[in-house]
């Protein structure tokens, strides 16, 4: 029998048992569909992480105080006050840290009450220096950012994020107006360009004031010297490692720490955070793909089960075919192809379901999903392969039937 005729015979058998074939294919359908959806979500997550990396500015290095590691457990991250304005000033020295482009010491408080005329708004307020713009890869929309002079003079000037500005000044006349932050009047000198919300954190809802002003007037119990963290930007993406090394060496030196394991500060790069995120999402994708794989396996066992039933039911047919001259190979191929046809039909429906779900998720939910045609093709191949693999046992059983036994079976 030619492959075409065998395939036609298989198709005919599948068609004549429509409901059963469909139920059998359902397992494969769900498996392939799940595979395509999970891979779609995984790819989508990776794409969105990638775009977030470029948006955040991967050159950013964050120095936070604290971090005494004891017995593998890091304690007190960010709770101590070991970083100072002097540390920040020292890092700005190009002869000591040549790979550092900008240094911005930062203090901040959440839940600061801001009042502009009749409007009251609660947001976070950050005290920093002019380098804050560079290190955060932010740009001005209008007006000017705070200057070194403002920092030196403890000037009561503020730069607003676009969200904050729009909420405090619905009329759009923010620049030049006064805003009371924690009952202290500040003059608005500039508005930032929007960056876009990232999950729960909105980087466009904040006010930035000179760090000296914040330390003196806004942070309760704050000193004029200690800072909450220091943002450092490297000259380039490639310089991140050497820059963080320079920062580390310098701070160890200024803090008079000989054993690097006893450092009272922690250095984090954006890239390291994002690679952790990436690894997490990869693990999640693998887990989901594993679940999809298991459901494919279960589907395959379903195919095997039904094919065994089918062989038992059609013992007389097998006997007749053998009596009429079918060789073992002919019978084997017939049942293998039948199993493969069922699985391939399930796989096709699964690709349809998976593709539709991927588009729907991308469109109607906050998830970013990507439909990948190669993955769909692989899913189809896997489905047909599963049909073949799990069809082997029933097909072998059919092929090995002795014709007289089979003929008597009717």
């Amino acid at each position, binding site marked *: *029998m030619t492959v075409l005729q065998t395939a036609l015979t298989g198709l005919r058998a599948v068609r004549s048992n429509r409901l059963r074939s469909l139920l059998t294919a359902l397992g494969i359908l769900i498996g392939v569909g799940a595979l395509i959806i999970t891979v779609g979500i995984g790819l989508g997550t990776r794409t969105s992480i990638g775009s977030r990396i470029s948006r955040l500015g991967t050159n950013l290095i964050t120095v936070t105080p604290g971090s005494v590691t004891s017995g593998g457990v890091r304690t007190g991250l960010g709770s101590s006050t070991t970083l100072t304005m002097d540390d920040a000033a020292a890092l700005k020295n190009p002869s000591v840290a040549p790979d550092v482009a900008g240094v911005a010491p930062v203090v901040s408080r959440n839940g600061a009450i801001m009042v502009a005329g009749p409007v009251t708004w609660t947001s976070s307020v950050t005290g920093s220096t002019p380098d804050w713009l560079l290190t955060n890869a932010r740009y001005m929309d209008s007006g000017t950012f705070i200057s070194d002079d403002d920092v030196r003079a403890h000037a009561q000037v503020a730069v607003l994020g676009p969200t904050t500005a729009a909420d405090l000044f619905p009329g759009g006349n923010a620049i030049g107006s006064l805003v009371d932050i924690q009952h202290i009047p500040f003059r608005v000198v500039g508005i930032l360009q929007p960056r876009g919300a990232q999950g729960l954190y909105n980087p466009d809802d904040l006010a930035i004031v000179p760090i000296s002003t914040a330390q003196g007037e806004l942070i309760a119990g704050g000193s004029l010297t200690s800072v909450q963290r220091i943002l450092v930007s490297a000259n380039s993406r490639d310089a991140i490692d050497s820059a963080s090394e320079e920062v580390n060496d310098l701070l160890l030196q200024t803090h008079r720490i000989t054993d690097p394991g006893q450092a009272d500060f922690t250095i984090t790069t954006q890239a390291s955070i994002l690679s952790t995120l990436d690894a997490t999402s990869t693990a999640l994708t693998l887990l989901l793909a594993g679940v999809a794989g298991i459901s494919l396996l279960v589907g395959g066992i379903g195919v095997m089960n039904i094919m065994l039933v089918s062989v038992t039911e059609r013992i007389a047919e097998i006997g007749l*075919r053998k*009596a*009429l*001259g*079918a060789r073992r190979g*002919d019978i084997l191929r017939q049942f293998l192809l039948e199993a493969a046809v069922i699985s391939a039909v399930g796989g096709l429906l699964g690709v349809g379901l998976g593709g539709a779900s991927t588009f729907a998720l991308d469109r109607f939910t906050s998830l970013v999903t990507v439909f990948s045609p190669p993955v769909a093709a692989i899913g189809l191949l896997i489905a047909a392969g599963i049909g073949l693999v799990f069809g082997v046992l029933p097909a072998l059983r059919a092929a090995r039937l002795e014709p*007289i036994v089979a*003929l008597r079976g009717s």
Partner: protein
Amino acid sequence: MVTGGEHAVLTLEKVCKTYGAGETIVRALRDVDLEVRRGDFVAIIGPSGSGKSTLMNILGCLDIPTSGRYLFAGEDVMRMRDDELAHIRNLRIGFVFQQFHLLKKLTAWRNVELPLLYRRASRRREKAMRALEMVGLDHRVDHTPNQLSGGQQQRVAIARALVTDPELILADEPTGNLDTASTRDILAILDQLHKDGRTIVLITHDPEIAAVAPRIVRISDGVLTEESMSTALELTGRRAPTARPRTRAPRRRAAPMIVEDAASA
């Protein structure tokens, strides 16, 4: 096709078939000798349990003897591999079964086509049509088995046996499931095939059916004995003289290919 019967199609020498072992051993065939020549029409007659089904399976290359020699057209069947046996069944033997064994989901001509599929033959529909014409069913080629009467189904099965133009037609109780009218039709077709020079082995428990064959062999407890034709005729003659196919032979000769439709009978 007609060769004058000089060559043996089948030769069995001291063929034995046993099932089981030790105390429960069953000797289904004991030292069976049989020769069927080209153009022969042999009826093998025996009651159930006599070993005739075993003999039929061995003749049809569906089973292998335990000992002895079986030559099919001079070739030693016992030395053949599975696939070679399948080849012989496909090409050189046409089976007709008591249960018809048609595939219910296929139309008549698709059923007839089946053996051709396993040898990748060309012009399959044409050949199937010709075979169906030979049994007088060319007007029902697109009917499925459950749209056909028992007699018509068996005629489809005979067409399927003929489609590869085999050297041997092996009919196992071909009329066992049929009424008398259909039985008459089927026996008439077999008789005509014999007259056309085909080699036919008919297996039955019914002496009246066996009487259609010029040569009758009796099997009992696994032992084969040749019967003279006269004995067979006497047997059937006493019981049902009208059933003797001989009496209707002239009519069949007059219109050999037109067989009455069993369904309308």
